């Protein structure tokens, strides 16, 4: 547990360093994810303690967004003035993005004959 948490934090730290030193437009944790992924590829398997730590962190992932979400209170005034464009753009654009991304992926998979690999019953 301690070793795997250290590994995860170490990857994040390395990611932050890369991001800062090379002035990359990608945030440190995302680079950290790539580093940890590369390490897993080299190792060829996920050690059980690392799996347990990751499960712990990811099982309540949405909780971690609450503090940033409360930041909405700082901009309530500006948002009240622009509530209609903001609501329209958020809903319209988010739905359009989800539909386009999913449909393009499904179509290309169908064209290349790779459909049905990740079928669900949803």
């Amino acid at each position: 547990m301690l070793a795997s948490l250290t590994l995860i934090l170490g990857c994040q730290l390395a990611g932050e360093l890369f991001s800062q030193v090379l002035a990359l437009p990608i945030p440190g944790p995302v680079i950290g994810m790539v580093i940890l992924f590369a390490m897993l590829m080299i190792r060829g398997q996920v050690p059980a303690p690392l799996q347990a730590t990751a499960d712990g962190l990811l099982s309540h992932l949405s909780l971690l967004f609450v503090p940033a979400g409360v930041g909405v209170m700082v901009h309530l005034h500006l948002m009240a003035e622009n509530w209609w464009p903001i609501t329209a753009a958020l809903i319209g654009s988010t739905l359009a993005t989800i539909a386009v991304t999913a449909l393009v992926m499904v179509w290309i998979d169908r064209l290349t004959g790779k459909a049905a690999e990740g079928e669900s019953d949803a």
Partner: protein
Amino acid sequence: MRDLTQIWVYLSASPLLFLTLTLIAFQFGTWIYQRSGGLPLFNPVLIAVIVLVALLSLTGTSYETYFEGAQFVHFLLGPATVALAIPLYRQFERVRRSALALGVSLICGSLTAIVSALGIGWLTGASHDTLMSLAPKSVTAPVAMAITEQLGGLPSLTAVLVMLTGITGAILGPMLLTLIGVSDWRARGFALGAASHGIGTARALQESEIAGAFSGLAMGLNALATAILLPLLWRLVF
């Protein structure tokens, strides 16, 4: 006995109070969500945010004071993002096999997010600040804020719009995907991550590990794609 105001002042000076309240508000949100039978509108993050904003407003507490406690939860976002490498690794064979579909759909999705946000915002009369803060809304917060800063918008407003985009996608995304007949876990996850970054990924992880892995991947790739595409588009148009 000291009066309540004094106790409140004492407690709110330590991180303990707002850290605990954040956990309670989220569990309350989860409870409501489960009680509603998983109705998407009762999103636990949304409920927790509403409860906390109401509480802070009623007690006259500033966001800065709140964040001193909540930052411990907020901090875990970084390690959790790194930990997304594990579902990604476990699903890598699937990712590799659909690399072409992923690449093309990501670029289409990224462009759709930017152009539709700017287009709808412009048509409905958004202010200049709002428009520029809306443009990178589908990207994970730290990247979106950096992009907005580059364009000359308001990074803190962007952070809020990014959150709201995430919640919107988590609430409406799975319903929309089912409605348009997308049942493939890979496509469902990838679309949620591309449009609604980490909050979409949290939602996708609830659907299945496959969806979660593809969603985390889309979040990372869309951060990269938008950071490159948006400033280019901006230069073309303005």
